[in-house]
Protein backbone atom coordinates (compact mmCIF):
# COMPACT_ATOMS: atom_id res chain seq x y z
CA UNK A 1 0.00 0.00 0.00
CA UNK A 2 1.52 3.39 -0.94
CA UNK A 3 2.69 5.39 2.00
CA UNK A 4 0.40 8.37 1.61
CA UNK A 5 -2.65 6.67 0.23
CA UNK A 6 -5.66 8.15 1.95
CA UNK A 7 -8.84 6.21 1.84
CA UNK A 8 -12.11 7.83 1.01
CA UNK A 9 -13.27 8.13 4.59
CA UNK A 10 -16.79 9.48 4.76
CA UNK A 11 -16.73 12.89 3.10
CA UNK A 12 -17.44 12.42 -0.55
CA UNK A 13 -19.20 9.11 -0.26
CA UNK A 14 -21.45 10.46 2.45
CA UNK A 15 -22.36 13.50 0.40
CA UNK A 16 -23.22 11.28 -2.55
CA UNK A 17 -25.27 8.96 -0.35
CA UNK A 18 -27.24 11.78 1.23
CA UNK A 19 -27.92 13.47 -2.10
CA UNK A 20 -29.01 10.34 -3.92
CA UNK A 21 -31.12 9.12 -1.03
CA UNK A 22 -32.87 12.44 -0.58
CA UNK A 23 -33.56 12.57 -4.27
CA UNK A 24 -34.97 9.04 -4.18
CA UNK A 25 -37.23 9.85 -1.24
CA UNK A 26 -38.54 13.00 -2.91
CA UNK A 27 -39.14 11.19 -6.17
CA UNK A 28 -40.92 8.31 -4.46
CA UNK A 29 -42.95 10.75 -2.39
CA UNK A 30 -44.02 12.69 -5.41
CA UNK A 31 -45.01 9.55 -7.31
CA UNK A 32 -46.86 8.22 -4.28
CA UNK A 33 -48.80 11.44 -3.83
CA UNK A 34 -49.63 11.92 -7.48
CA UNK A 35 -50.38 8.42 -8.70
CA UNK A 36 -52.89 5.82 -7.66
CA UNK A 37 -56.30 4.41 -8.35
CA UNK A 38 -57.96 7.77 -7.80
CA UNK A 39 -56.92 9.63 -10.94
CA UNK A 40 -55.60 13.13 -10.60
CA UNK A 41 -53.19 15.16 -12.66
CA UNK A 42 -49.71 15.88 -11.30
CA UNK A 43 -50.68 19.50 -11.23
CA UNK A 44 -53.74 18.79 -9.11
CA UNK A 45 -51.67 16.68 -6.75
CA UNK A 46 -49.03 19.36 -6.38
CA UNK A 47 -51.71 21.93 -5.79
CA UNK A 48 -53.44 19.79 -3.16
CA UNK A 49 -50.14 19.21 -1.42
CA UNK A 50 -48.89 22.77 -1.35
CA UNK A 51 -52.03 24.84 -1.79
CA UNK A 52 -53.69 27.13 0.69
CA UNK A 53 -56.56 24.77 1.34
CA UNK A 54 -54.60 23.00 4.06
CA UNK A 55 -51.69 25.29 4.71
CA UNK A 56 -54.03 28.30 4.93
CA UNK A 57 -56.09 26.62 7.65
CA UNK A 58 -53.92 25.90 10.68
CA UNK A 59 -56.87 24.22 12.40
CA UNK A 60 -57.29 21.76 9.58
CA UNK A 61 -53.56 21.07 9.50
CA UNK A 62 -53.48 20.42 13.23
CA UNK A 63 -56.59 18.27 12.97
CA UNK A 64 -54.76 16.06 10.49
CA UNK A 65 -51.54 15.96 12.45
CA UNK A 66 -52.97 15.44 15.91
CA UNK A 67 -56.13 13.50 15.11
CA UNK A 68 -59.88 14.04 15.55
CA UNK A 69 -59.95 13.53 19.29
CA UNK A 70 -57.26 16.00 20.12
CA UNK A 71 -58.78 18.51 17.73
CA UNK A 72 -62.15 18.18 19.42
CA UNK A 73 -60.58 18.62 22.82
CA UNK A 74 -58.81 21.71 21.61
CA UNK A 75 -62.24 23.06 20.70
CA UNK A 76 -61.74 23.17 16.95
CA UNK A 77 -64.90 23.60 14.91
CA UNK A 78 -65.87 21.25 12.10
CA UNK A 79 -63.76 21.93 9.04
CA UNK A 80 -65.17 23.30 5.83
CA UNK A 81 -65.75 20.86 3.05
CA UNK A 82 -62.44 19.87 1.43
CA UNK A 83 -61.84 18.97 -2.18
CA UNK A 84 -61.60 15.22 -2.78
CA UNK A 85 -58.11 15.47 -4.27
CA UNK A 86 -56.87 17.34 -1.22
CA UNK A 87 -58.53 14.83 1.06
CA UNK A 88 -56.92 11.87 -0.71
CA UNK A 89 -53.50 13.47 -0.86
CA UNK A 90 -53.55 14.55 2.75
CA UNK A 91 -55.26 11.67 4.49
CA UNK A 92 -54.19 8.70 2.39
CA UNK A 93 -51.12 9.28 0.30
CA UNK A 94 -48.98 11.72 2.27
CA UNK A 95 -49.12 9.92 5.61
CA UNK A 96 -48.16 6.69 3.86
CA UNK A 97 -44.99 8.37 2.62
CA UNK A 98 -44.23 9.73 6.08
CA UNK A 99 -44.77 6.37 7.73
CA UNK A 100 -42.55 4.79 5.08
CA UNK A 101 -39.77 7.25 5.86
CA UNK A 102 -39.94 6.57 9.58
CA UNK A 103 -40.21 2.81 9.19
CA UNK A 104 -37.14 2.98 6.95
CA UNK A 105 -35.18 4.88 9.56
CA UNK A 106 -36.20 2.54 12.34
CA UNK A 107 -35.40 -0.65 10.49
CA UNK A 108 -32.04 0.63 9.26
CA UNK A 109 -31.04 1.86 12.72
CA UNK A 110 -32.16 -1.30 14.36
CA UNK A 111 -30.28 -3.41 11.83
CA UNK A 112 -27.09 -1.39 12.28
CA UNK A 113 -27.21 -1.81 16.02
CA UNK A 114 -27.88 -5.54 15.87
CA UNK A 115 -25.07 -6.03 13.40
CA UNK A 116 -22.73 -4.30 15.82
CA UNK A 117 -23.79 -6.08 18.99
CA UNK A 118 -23.72 -9.50 17.36
CA UNK A 119 -20.62 -8.56 15.34
CA UNK A 120 -22.24 -10.13 12.33
CA UNK A 121 -23.00 -8.42 9.08
CA UNK A 122 -25.83 -10.84 8.42
CA UNK A 123 -27.78 -9.79 11.49
CA UNK A 124 -31.16 -8.19 10.95
CA UNK A 125 -33.52 -6.32 13.27
CA UNK A 126 -35.54 -9.50 13.57
CA UNK A 127 -32.65 -11.63 14.73
CA UNK A 128 -33.35 -11.55 18.44
CA UNK A 129 -36.95 -12.58 18.39
CA UNK A 130 -38.87 -9.47 17.37
CA UNK A 131 -40.30 -11.06 14.26
CA UNK A 132 -41.14 -14.30 16.03
CA UNK A 133 -42.82 -12.61 18.96
CA UNK A 134 -44.66 -10.03 16.91
CA UNK A 135 -45.62 -12.55 14.22
CA UNK A 136 -46.97 -15.01 16.73
CA UNK A 137 -49.00 -12.46 18.64
CA UNK A 138 -50.37 -11.06 15.38
CA UNK A 139 -51.58 -14.50 14.34
CA UNK A 140 -53.00 -15.20 17.77
CA UNK A 141 -55.01 -12.01 17.68
CA UNK A 142 -56.23 -12.38 14.11
CA UNK A 143 -57.17 -16.03 14.38
CA UNK A 144 -58.09 -16.69 17.99
CA UNK A 145 -58.85 -13.31 19.56
CA UNK A 146 -60.30 -11.12 16.80
CA UNK A 147 -61.94 -8.94 19.46
CA UNK A 148 -58.54 -7.51 20.27
CA UNK A 149 -57.99 -6.46 16.65
CA UNK A 150 -58.09 -2.77 17.42
CA UNK A 151 -55.07 -3.08 19.65
CA UNK A 152 -53.09 -5.17 17.19
CA UNK A 153 -50.22 -2.69 16.75
CA UNK A 154 -49.56 -2.45 20.46
CA UNK A 155 -49.94 -6.17 20.96
CA UNK A 156 -47.49 -6.86 18.13
CA UNK A 157 -45.01 -4.48 19.69
CA UNK A 158 -45.41 -6.10 23.08
CA UNK A 159 -45.04 -9.55 21.53
CA UNK A 160 -41.81 -8.55 19.85
CA UNK A 161 -40.35 -7.12 23.04
CA UNK A 162 -41.47 -10.11 25.09
CA UNK A 163 -39.74 -12.48 22.69
CA UNK A 164 -36.57 -10.37 22.88
CA UNK A 165 -36.52 -10.65 26.67
CA UNK A 166 -37.05 -14.38 26.37
CA UNK A 167 -34.16 -14.64 23.92
CA UNK A 168 -31.95 -12.72 26.31
CA UNK A 169 -32.95 -14.91 29.21
CA UNK A 170 -32.15 -18.07 27.24
CA UNK A 171 -28.80 -16.68 26.10
CA UNK A 172 -27.78 -15.59 29.59
CA UNK A 173 -25.23 -17.71 31.36
CA UNK A 174 -22.99 -15.56 33.55
CA UNK A 175 -23.28 -13.02 30.76
CA UNK A 176 -24.00 -13.34 27.07
CA UNK A 177 -22.00 -13.48 23.91
CA UNK A 178 -22.87 -12.61 20.33
CA UNK A 179 -23.05 -16.28 19.37
CA UNK A 180 -25.29 -17.25 22.29
CA UNK A 181 -27.66 -14.41 21.48
CA UNK A 182 -27.94 -15.42 17.84
CA UNK A 183 -28.53 -19.05 18.78
CA UNK A 184 -31.19 -18.14 21.29
CA UNK A 185 -32.83 -16.00 18.60
CA UNK A 186 -32.85 -18.97 16.23
CA UNK A 187 -34.38 -21.20 18.92
CA UNK A 188 -37.23 -18.80 19.66
CA UNK A 189 -37.65 -18.14 15.95
CA UNK A 190 -38.04 -21.81 15.13
CA UNK A 191 -40.62 -22.45 17.82
CA UNK A 192 -42.66 -19.30 17.35
CA UNK A 193 -42.49 -19.66 13.57
CA UNK A 194 -43.95 -23.15 13.66
CA UNK A 195 -46.79 -22.21 15.93
CA UNK A 196 -47.46 -19.14 13.81
CA UNK A 197 -47.70 -21.22 10.64
CA UNK A 198 -49.86 -23.75 12.44
CA UNK A 199 -52.33 -21.04 13.34
CA UNK A 200 -53.08 -20.45 9.64
CA UNK A 201 -55.03 -23.72 9.67
CA UNK A 202 -57.44 -22.26 12.17
CA UNK A 203 -58.20 -19.17 10.11
CA UNK A 204 -61.90 -18.81 9.43
CA UNK A 205 -61.79 -17.19 6.02
CA UNK A 206 -59.57 -15.80 3.32
CA UNK A 207 -59.71 -12.22 4.62
CA UNK A 208 -58.12 -13.27 7.87
CA UNK A 209 -55.40 -15.11 5.99
CA UNK A 210 -54.73 -12.16 3.71
CA UNK A 211 -54.67 -9.81 6.66
CA UNK A 212 -52.27 -12.09 8.49
CA UNK A 213 -50.07 -12.32 5.41
CA UNK A 214 -50.02 -8.56 5.04
CA UNK A 215 -48.84 -8.27 8.66
CA UNK A 216 -46.27 -10.98 8.48
CA UNK A 217 -44.77 -9.86 5.17
CA UNK A 218 -45.05 -6.19 6.02
CA UNK A 219 -47.33 -3.70 4.33
CA UNK A 220 -48.06 0.00 4.41
CA UNK A 221 -51.49 -0.34 2.86
CA UNK A 222 -54.07 1.71 4.70
CA UNK A 223 -51.76 3.59 7.03
CA UNK A 224 -52.76 7.13 7.92
CA UNK A 225 -52.03 9.90 10.34
CA UNK A 226 -52.84 7.64 13.26
CA UNK A 227 -49.82 5.48 12.32
CA UNK A 228 -47.71 8.61 11.84
CA UNK A 229 -48.54 9.64 15.39
CA UNK A 230 -47.88 6.15 16.62
CA UNK A 231 -44.38 5.78 15.18
CA UNK A 232 -43.08 9.38 15.22
CA UNK A 233 -42.20 9.64 18.92
CA UNK A 234 -40.48 6.22 18.90
CA UNK A 235 -38.52 7.20 15.83
CA UNK A 236 -37.30 10.34 17.53
CA UNK A 237 -36.36 8.42 20.67
CA UNK A 238 -34.56 5.73 18.70
CA UNK A 239 -32.63 8.22 16.59
CA UNK A 240 -31.47 10.02 19.71
CA UNK A 241 -30.56 6.76 21.46
CA UNK A 242 -28.80 5.51 18.34
CA UNK A 243 -26.63 8.57 17.95
CA UNK A 244 -25.77 8.71 21.62
CA UNK A 245 -24.68 5.08 21.43
CA UNK A 246 -22.31 5.35 18.48
CA UNK A 247 -19.12 5.33 20.52
CA UNK A 248 -20.26 2.25 22.42
CA UNK A 249 -21.17 0.47 19.20
CA UNK A 250 -17.74 1.21 17.77
CA UNK A 251 -16.04 -0.20 20.82
CA UNK A 252 -18.22 -3.32 20.92
CA UNK A 253 -16.86 -4.12 17.47
CA UNK A 254 -13.40 -4.57 19.02
CA UNK A 255 -14.70 -7.61 20.87
CA UNK A 256 -15.84 -8.18 24.44
CA UNK A 257 -12.41 -8.50 26.10
CA UNK A 258 -11.04 -5.32 24.59
CA UNK A 259 -14.25 -3.40 25.26
CA UNK A 260 -14.10 -4.54 28.85
CA UNK A 261 -10.43 -3.64 29.20
CA UNK A 262 -11.27 -0.13 28.02
CA UNK A 263 -13.62 0.19 30.96
CA UNK A 264 -16.91 -0.42 29.21
CA UNK A 265 -19.58 -2.37 31.11
CA UNK A 266 -20.10 -4.73 28.19
CA UNK A 267 -23.21 -6.60 29.28
CA UNK A 268 -25.12 -3.54 30.39
CA UNK A 269 -24.19 -1.61 27.27
CA UNK A 270 -25.10 -4.47 25.00
CA UNK A 271 -28.46 -4.95 26.67
CA UNK A 272 -29.33 -1.25 26.54
CA UNK A 273 -28.32 -0.97 22.91
CA UNK A 274 -30.25 -4.11 22.06
CA UNK A 275 -33.28 -2.74 23.90
CA UNK A 276 -33.09 0.49 21.90
CA UNK A 277 -32.82 -1.49 18.68
CA UNK A 278 -35.77 -3.67 19.69
CA UNK A 279 -37.83 -0.59 20.46
CA UNK A 280 -36.95 0.70 17.04
CA UNK A 281 -37.85 -2.53 15.26
CA UNK A 282 -41.00 -3.11 17.29
CA UNK A 283 -42.31 0.37 16.57
CA UNK A 284 -41.79 -0.27 12.86
CA UNK A 285 -43.57 -3.61 13.19
CA UNK A 286 -46.50 -2.02 15.01
CA UNK A 287 -47.41 0.13 12.01
CA UNK A 288 -46.11 -1.83 9.05
CA UNK A 289 -45.81 -5.46 10.07
CA UNK A 290 -42.70 -7.48 9.42
CA UNK A 291 -40.97 -5.84 6.47
CA UNK A 292 -37.93 -7.96 5.76
CA UNK A 293 -34.45 -7.20 4.45
CA UNK A 294 -34.52 -3.42 4.85
CA UNK A 295 -32.76 -3.61 8.19
CA UNK A 296 -30.31 -6.08 6.72
CA UNK A 297 -29.28 -4.48 3.46
CA UNK A 298 -29.41 -0.77 4.26
CA UNK A 299 -26.60 -0.91 6.86
CA UNK A 300 -24.69 -3.11 4.41
CA UNK A 301 -24.92 -0.58 1.59
CA UNK A 302 -24.17 2.38 3.83
CA UNK A 303 -21.21 0.64 5.44
CA UNK A 304 -19.67 -0.17 2.09
CA UNK A 305 -19.88 3.51 1.21
CA UNK A 306 -18.95 5.34 4.41
CA UNK A 307 -17.27 2.70 6.57
CA UNK A 308 -18.15 1.08 9.85
CA UNK A 309 -17.71 3.91 12.39
CA UNK A 310 -21.24 4.27 13.65
CA UNK A 311 -21.62 8.01 13.61
CA UNK A 312 -21.27 7.93 9.87
CA UNK A 313 -23.08 4.64 9.49
CA UNK A 314 -26.19 5.79 11.36
CA UNK A 315 -26.14 9.16 9.63
CA UNK A 316 -26.11 7.34 6.30
CA UNK A 317 -28.93 5.04 7.44
CA UNK A 318 -31.02 8.07 8.31
CA UNK A 319 -31.19 8.79 4.57
CA UNK A 320 -30.73 5.42 2.89
CA UNK A 321 -33.36 3.63 5.01
CA UNK A 322 -36.18 5.93 3.97
CA UNK A 323 -34.95 5.90 0.37
CA UNK A 324 -35.16 2.14 0.07
CA UNK A 325 -38.45 1.86 1.88
CA UNK A 326 -40.31 4.64 0.08
CA UNK A 327 -39.14 3.43 -3.33
CA UNK A 328 -40.07 -0.15 -2.51
CA UNK A 329 -43.44 0.99 -1.25
CA UNK A 330 -44.14 3.02 -4.36
CA UNK A 331 -43.32 -0.08 -6.38
CA UNK A 332 -45.50 -2.35 -4.28
CA UNK A 333 -48.45 0.01 -4.51
CA UNK A 334 -48.29 1.00 -8.16
CA UNK A 335 -46.46 -1.69 -10.13
CA UNK A 336 -49.31 -4.18 -10.27
CA UNK A 337 -52.11 -1.67 -9.86
CA UNK A 338 -54.95 -2.12 -9.02
CA UNK A 339 -53.57 -4.95 -6.88
CA UNK A 340 -51.41 -3.69 -4.03
CA UNK A 341 -48.87 -6.20 -2.87
CA UNK A 342 -47.26 -5.96 0.59
CA UNK A 343 -44.08 -3.89 0.47
CA UNK A 344 -42.26 -6.71 2.24
CA UNK A 345 -42.51 -8.77 -0.93
CA UNK A 346 -40.71 -6.09 -2.92
CA UNK A 347 -37.99 -5.65 -0.28
CA UNK A 348 -37.57 -9.43 -0.14
CA UNK A 349 -36.98 -9.64 -3.89
CA UNK A 350 -34.62 -6.65 -3.78
CA UNK A 351 -32.82 -8.09 -0.76
CA UNK A 352 -32.28 -11.46 -2.40
CA UNK A 353 -30.91 -9.81 -5.52
CA UNK A 354 -28.62 -7.63 -3.47
CA UNK A 355 -27.15 -10.57 -1.63
CA UNK A 356 -26.59 -12.42 -4.87
CA UNK A 357 -24.60 -9.41 -6.04
CA UNK A 358 -22.66 -9.29 -2.76
CA UNK A 359 -21.85 -12.96 -2.90
CA UNK A 360 -20.50 -12.64 -6.42
CA UNK A 361 -18.48 -9.54 -5.69
CA UNK A 362 -16.99 -9.98 -2.26
CA UNK A 363 -14.52 -12.65 -1.30
CA UNK A 364 -15.39 -12.74 2.31
CA UNK A 365 -18.32 -11.36 4.16
CA UNK A 366 -20.30 -11.95 7.27
CA UNK A 367 -17.88 -11.16 10.03
CA UNK A 368 -17.76 -7.59 11.20
Amino acid at each position, binding site marked *: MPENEKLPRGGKAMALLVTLSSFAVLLAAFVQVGAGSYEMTWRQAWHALTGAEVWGQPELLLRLLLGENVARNLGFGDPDAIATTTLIVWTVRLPRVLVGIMVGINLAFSGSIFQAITRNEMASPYLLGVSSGAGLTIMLVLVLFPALGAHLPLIAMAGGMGAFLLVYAIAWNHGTSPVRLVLAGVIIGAIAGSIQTGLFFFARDLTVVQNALAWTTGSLTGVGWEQVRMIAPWTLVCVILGFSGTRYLDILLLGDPTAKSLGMPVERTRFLLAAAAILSAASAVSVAGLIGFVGLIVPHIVRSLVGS*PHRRLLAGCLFAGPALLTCADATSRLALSPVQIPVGIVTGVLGGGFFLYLMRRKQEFGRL
Partner: protein
Amino acid sequence: MSQESATFTISGLAGNDLTVRYRQKQTPVIAGQTVAIPEGKITVFIGPNGSGKSTLLKTLAWQLRPEMGTVILDGRNIAEFSPKELACRLGILFQENSAPNDLTVEELAYHGRYPHRRLFESLTPEDSEAVERALQLSGSDRLRHHLISQLSSGQKQLAWIAMLLSQSPKYLFLDEPTTFLDMAHQFEIMDLVRRLNRELGNTVLLSVHDLNLAARYADHIIALRDGRVVAEGSSEEVLTVEILREVFQVETRIVRDLAGDSFYCVPLGKTCEQVSVKGCR
Protein backbone atom coordinates in the same frame (compact mmCIF):
# COMPACT_ATOMS: atom_id res chain seq x y z
CA MET B 1 15.05 -10.54 48.36
CA SER B 2 13.17 -8.05 50.40
CA GLN B 3 9.61 -7.52 49.32
CA GLU B 4 7.19 -5.43 51.26
CA SER B 5 4.07 -7.16 52.34
CA ALA B 6 1.70 -6.57 49.46
CA THR B 7 -1.19 -5.32 51.54
CA PHE B 8 0.66 -2.30 52.81
CA THR B 9 2.14 -1.13 49.54
CA ILE B 10 1.03 2.43 48.81
CA SER B 11 1.65 2.24 45.12
CA GLY B 12 2.27 -0.78 43.00
CA LEU B 13 0.48 -3.94 42.10
CA ALA B 14 0.14 -7.15 44.04
CA GLY B 15 -2.08 -10.20 44.11
CA ASN B 16 -2.84 -11.83 47.45
CA ASP B 17 -3.80 -15.45 47.75
CA LEU B 18 -5.40 -15.59 44.30
CA THR B 19 -7.43 -18.59 43.24
CA VAL B 20 -8.94 -18.58 39.77
CA ARG B 21 -11.21 -21.19 38.25
CA TYR B 22 -12.85 -21.06 34.85
CA ARG B 23 -15.62 -23.43 35.81
CA GLN B 24 -16.89 -24.39 39.18
CA LYS B 25 -15.56 -27.63 40.63
CA GLN B 26 -12.74 -27.84 38.11
CA THR B 27 -9.18 -27.73 39.31
CA PRO B 28 -8.17 -24.11 39.75
CA VAL B 29 -6.00 -22.56 37.04
CA ILE B 30 -4.33 -20.44 39.69
CA ALA B 31 -4.24 -21.96 43.15
CA GLY B 32 -3.82 -19.60 46.09
CA GLN B 33 -0.90 -17.60 44.72
CA THR B 34 0.54 -14.38 46.07
CA VAL B 35 2.66 -12.19 43.82
CA ALA B 36 4.08 -8.70 44.10
CA ILE B 37 4.95 -6.86 40.91
CA PRO B 38 7.98 -4.58 41.27
CA GLU B 39 7.04 -1.06 40.34
CA GLY B 40 8.59 0.61 37.33
CA LYS B 41 10.07 -2.66 36.17
CA ILE B 42 9.49 -5.15 33.38
CA THR B 43 8.07 -8.33 34.86
CA VAL B 44 7.92 -11.38 32.61
CA PHE B 45 5.76 -14.43 33.23
CA ILE B 46 7.14 -17.67 31.88
CA GLY B 47 5.77 -21.18 32.00
CA PRO B 48 4.54 -23.97 29.75
CA ASN B 49 1.15 -23.91 28.02
CA GLY B 50 -1.60 -24.17 30.58
CA SER B 51 0.65 -23.10 33.44
CA GLY B 52 -1.66 -20.19 34.18
CA LYS B 53 0.56 -17.32 33.12
CA SER B 54 -2.08 -15.68 30.94
CA THR B 55 -4.68 -16.29 33.61
CA LEU B 56 -2.56 -14.71 36.29
CA LEU B 57 -1.82 -11.77 34.01
CA LYS B 58 -5.50 -11.22 33.27
CA THR B 59 -6.44 -11.59 36.91
CA LEU B 60 -3.90 -8.99 37.99
CA ALA B 61 -5.37 -6.72 35.29
CA TRP B 62 -8.81 -7.49 36.78
CA GLN B 63 -10.10 -8.87 33.50
CA LEU B 64 -10.83 -12.12 35.28
CA ARG B 65 -12.43 -12.28 38.70
CA PRO B 66 -10.63 -14.56 41.13
CA GLU B 67 -12.74 -16.93 43.14
CA MET B 68 -10.69 -15.97 46.18
CA GLY B 69 -8.05 -13.43 46.97
CA THR B 70 -7.57 -9.78 46.21
CA VAL B 71 -5.57 -7.61 43.89
CA ILE B 72 -4.16 -4.42 45.37
CA LEU B 73 -3.50 -1.58 42.96
CA ASP B 74 -1.83 1.58 44.22
CA GLY B 75 -2.86 0.88 47.78
CA ARG B 76 -6.52 0.13 47.04
CA ASN B 77 -8.42 -3.05 46.50
CA ILE B 78 -8.72 -3.19 42.73
CA ALA B 79 -12.41 -4.11 43.00
CA GLU B 80 -13.11 -0.62 44.34
CA PHE B 81 -12.02 1.05 41.11
CA SER B 82 -14.71 1.85 38.57
CA PRO B 83 -14.09 0.13 35.22
CA LYS B 84 -13.15 3.44 33.62
CA GLU B 85 -10.85 4.47 36.46
CA LEU B 86 -9.11 1.17 36.09
CA ALA B 87 -8.78 1.53 32.32
CA CYS B 88 -7.06 4.88 32.85
CA ARG B 89 -4.44 3.18 34.99
CA LEU B 90 -3.88 -0.08 33.23
CA GLY B 91 -4.03 -1.18 29.64
CA ILE B 92 -4.00 -4.75 28.43
CA LEU B 93 -3.07 -6.21 25.07
CA PHE B 94 -4.70 -9.56 24.45
CA GLN B 95 -3.08 -12.36 22.57
CA GLU B 96 -5.68 -12.21 19.84
CA ASN B 97 -7.50 -9.12 18.71
CA SER B 98 -9.97 -8.29 16.03
CA ALA B 99 -11.08 -5.02 14.58
CA PRO B 100 -13.57 -4.17 11.83
CA ASN B 101 -12.03 -4.51 8.38
CA ASP B 102 -12.25 -0.85 7.60
CA LEU B 103 -10.89 0.62 10.81
CA THR B 104 -7.74 2.72 10.51
CA VAL B 105 -4.85 2.74 12.94
CA GLU B 106 -5.67 6.26 14.00
CA GLU B 107 -9.32 5.42 14.63
CA LEU B 108 -8.27 2.45 16.73
CA ALA B 109 -5.92 4.65 18.74
CA TYR B 110 -8.77 7.04 19.44
CA HIS B 111 -10.79 4.18 20.94
CA GLY B 112 -8.13 4.09 23.64
CA ARG B 113 -9.47 7.40 24.87
CA TYR B 114 -12.80 5.81 25.80
CA PRO B 115 -12.12 5.60 29.57
CA HIS B 116 -11.16 9.28 29.68
CA ARG B 117 -14.37 10.51 28.10
CA ARG B 118 -17.73 11.10 29.70
CA LEU B 119 -21.04 10.02 28.20
CA PHE B 120 -21.63 12.86 25.74
CA GLU B 121 -18.23 14.49 25.86
CA SER B 122 -16.65 15.12 22.50
CA LEU B 123 -12.93 14.81 21.83
CA THR B 124 -10.76 17.31 23.68
CA PRO B 125 -7.31 18.61 22.68
CA GLU B 126 -6.01 16.44 25.47
CA ASP B 127 -7.42 13.36 23.73
CA SER B 128 -5.76 14.29 20.45
CA GLU B 129 -2.46 14.91 22.20
CA ALA B 130 -2.57 11.56 23.94
CA VAL B 131 -3.35 9.81 20.66
CA GLU B 132 -0.58 11.64 18.82
CA ARG B 133 1.88 10.71 21.53
CA ALA B 134 0.73 7.10 21.44
CA LEU B 135 1.10 6.91 17.66
CA GLN B 136 4.58 8.40 17.86
CA LEU B 137 5.74 6.24 20.76
CA SER B 138 4.49 3.02 19.26
CA GLY B 139 6.01 3.87 15.91
CA SER B 140 2.65 3.46 14.16
CA ASP B 141 2.56 7.14 13.28
CA ARG B 142 3.29 6.58 9.61
CA LEU B 143 0.61 3.89 9.45
CA ARG B 144 -2.13 6.05 10.88
CA HIS B 145 -4.34 6.13 7.81
CA HIS B 146 -3.84 2.48 6.96
CA LEU B 147 -6.51 -0.11 7.53
CA ILE B 148 -5.66 -2.47 10.34
CA SER B 149 -6.91 -5.42 8.31
CA GLN B 150 -4.21 -4.73 5.72
CA LEU B 151 -1.26 -4.53 8.10
CA SER B 152 1.27 -7.26 8.79
CA SER B 153 1.07 -9.03 12.16
CA GLY B 154 3.89 -6.93 13.56
CA GLN B 155 2.34 -3.67 12.41
CA LYS B 156 -1.01 -4.79 13.78
CA GLN B 157 0.57 -5.37 17.16
CA LEU B 158 2.03 -1.85 17.08
CA ALA B 159 -1.39 -0.42 16.22
CA TRP B 160 -2.97 -2.18 19.18
CA ILE B 161 -0.18 -0.96 21.42
CA ALA B 162 -0.97 2.55 20.17
CA MET B 163 -4.53 2.07 21.41
CA LEU B 164 -3.19 0.87 24.73
CA LEU B 165 -0.90 3.88 25.07
CA SER B 166 -3.76 6.26 24.24
CA GLN B 167 -5.28 5.14 27.51
CA SER B 168 -2.21 6.72 29.14
CA PRO B 169 -1.91 3.82 31.56
CA LYS B 170 0.73 3.46 34.22
CA TYR B 171 0.61 -0.33 34.02
CA LEU B 172 0.91 -2.21 30.76
CA PHE B 173 -0.16 -5.85 30.49
CA LEU B 174 0.86 -7.72 27.37
CA ASP B 175 -0.29 -11.29 26.92
CA GLU B 176 2.23 -13.06 24.69
CA PRO B 177 2.80 -10.02 22.49
CA THR B 178 5.53 -11.69 20.43
CA THR B 179 4.07 -15.13 19.85
CA PHE B 180 2.96 -14.75 16.25
CA LEU B 181 5.80 -12.49 15.11
CA ASP B 182 9.03 -13.01 13.21
CA MET B 183 12.32 -12.26 14.97
CA ALA B 184 12.70 -8.69 13.79
CA HIS B 185 9.20 -7.82 14.95
CA GLN B 186 9.73 -9.61 18.25
CA PHE B 187 12.69 -7.33 18.89
CA GLU B 188 10.72 -4.33 17.71
CA ILE B 189 7.96 -5.02 20.22
CA MET B 190 10.35 -5.80 23.06
CA ASP B 191 12.48 -2.72 22.36
CA LEU B 192 9.31 -0.68 22.44
CA VAL B 193 8.35 -2.25 25.74
CA ARG B 194 11.75 -1.41 27.16
CA ARG B 195 11.55 2.16 25.91
CA LEU B 196 8.11 2.61 27.47
CA ASN B 197 9.47 1.28 30.71
CA ARG B 198 12.71 3.23 30.79
CA GLU B 199 11.44 6.52 29.38
CA LEU B 200 7.90 6.72 30.70
CA GLY B 201 8.41 4.68 33.81
CA ASN B 202 5.59 2.30 32.96
CA THR B 203 5.34 -0.87 34.95
CA VAL B 204 5.12 -3.66 32.38
CA LEU B 205 3.82 -7.19 32.84
CA LEU B 206 4.07 -9.59 29.98
CA SER B 207 4.13 -13.24 29.19
CA VAL B 208 6.42 -14.82 26.60
CA HIS B 209 7.36 -18.28 25.41
CA ASP B 210 10.85 -17.37 24.27
CA LEU B 211 13.17 -17.66 27.26
CA ASN B 212 15.88 -15.68 25.55
CA LEU B 213 13.58 -12.71 25.11
CA ALA B 214 12.81 -13.03 28.81
CA ALA B 215 16.51 -13.24 29.67
CA ARG B 216 17.27 -10.18 27.63
CA TYR B 217 14.43 -7.86 28.60
CA ALA B 218 13.09 -8.88 31.99
CA ASP B 219 13.94 -7.09 35.21
CA HIS B 220 11.94 -9.64 37.12
CA ILE B 221 10.78 -13.09 36.09
CA ILE B 222 7.93 -15.10 37.54
CA ALA B 223 7.96 -18.77 36.55
CA LEU B 224 4.73 -20.72 36.78
CA ARG B 225 3.80 -24.34 36.56
CA ASP B 226 0.34 -25.86 37.12
CA GLY B 227 -1.03 -22.62 38.50
CA ARG B 228 1.72 -22.11 41.05
CA VAL B 229 4.61 -19.71 41.17
CA VAL B 230 7.66 -21.96 41.11
CA ALA B 231 10.33 -19.30 41.16
CA GLU B 232 10.71 -15.57 40.93
CA GLY B 233 13.55 -13.13 40.81
CA SER B 234 16.01 -11.64 38.37
CA SER B 235 16.71 -13.48 35.13
CA GLU B 236 19.97 -14.87 36.51
CA GLU B 237 18.14 -16.21 39.53
CA VAL B 238 15.26 -17.81 37.66
CA LEU B 239 16.75 -18.99 34.38
CA THR B 240 18.80 -21.83 35.75
CA VAL B 241 19.06 -25.39 34.58
CA GLU B 242 17.30 -26.68 37.71
CA ILE B 243 14.37 -24.27 37.63
CA LEU B 244 13.82 -24.65 33.89
CA ARG B 245 13.80 -28.41 34.34
CA GLU B 246 11.18 -28.09 37.04
CA VAL B 247 9.05 -25.59 35.14
CA PHE B 248 9.25 -26.83 31.56
CA GLN B 249 10.60 -30.33 32.06
CA VAL B 250 13.22 -29.52 29.52
CA GLU B 251 16.97 -29.86 29.76
CA THR B 252 18.86 -26.70 28.96
CA ARG B 253 22.33 -25.32 28.99
CA ILE B 254 22.88 -21.72 30.06
CA VAL B 255 25.44 -20.01 27.86
CA ARG B 256 27.00 -16.61 28.42
CA ASP B 257 27.87 -14.65 25.35
CA LEU B 258 31.41 -13.48 24.74
CA ALA B 259 30.83 -9.95 25.99
CA GLY B 260 29.50 -11.51 29.14
CA ASP B 261 26.59 -9.13 29.59
CA SER B 262 23.84 -11.48 28.57
CA PHE B 263 23.16 -15.17 28.51
CA TYR B 264 21.11 -17.65 26.59
CA CYS B 265 19.14 -20.73 27.38
CA VAL B 266 19.94 -23.43 24.89
CA PRO B 267 17.27 -26.15 24.96
CA LEU B 268 18.69 -29.64 24.71
CA GLY B 269 15.66 -31.85 24.91
CA LYS B 270 12.86 -33.11 27.04
CA THR B 271 13.69 -34.25 30.54
CA CYS B 272 13.45 -38.02 31.08
CA GLU B 273 12.89 -39.94 34.27
CA GLN B 274 16.61 -40.42 34.43
CA VAL B 275 18.22 -37.18 33.62
CA SER B 276 20.65 -37.28 30.75
CA VAL B 277 22.20 -34.22 29.23
CA LYS B 278 22.04 -35.79 25.77
CA GLY B 279 18.22 -35.88 25.94
CA CYS B 280 15.72 -38.71 25.86
CA ARG B 281 16.21 -41.90 24.05
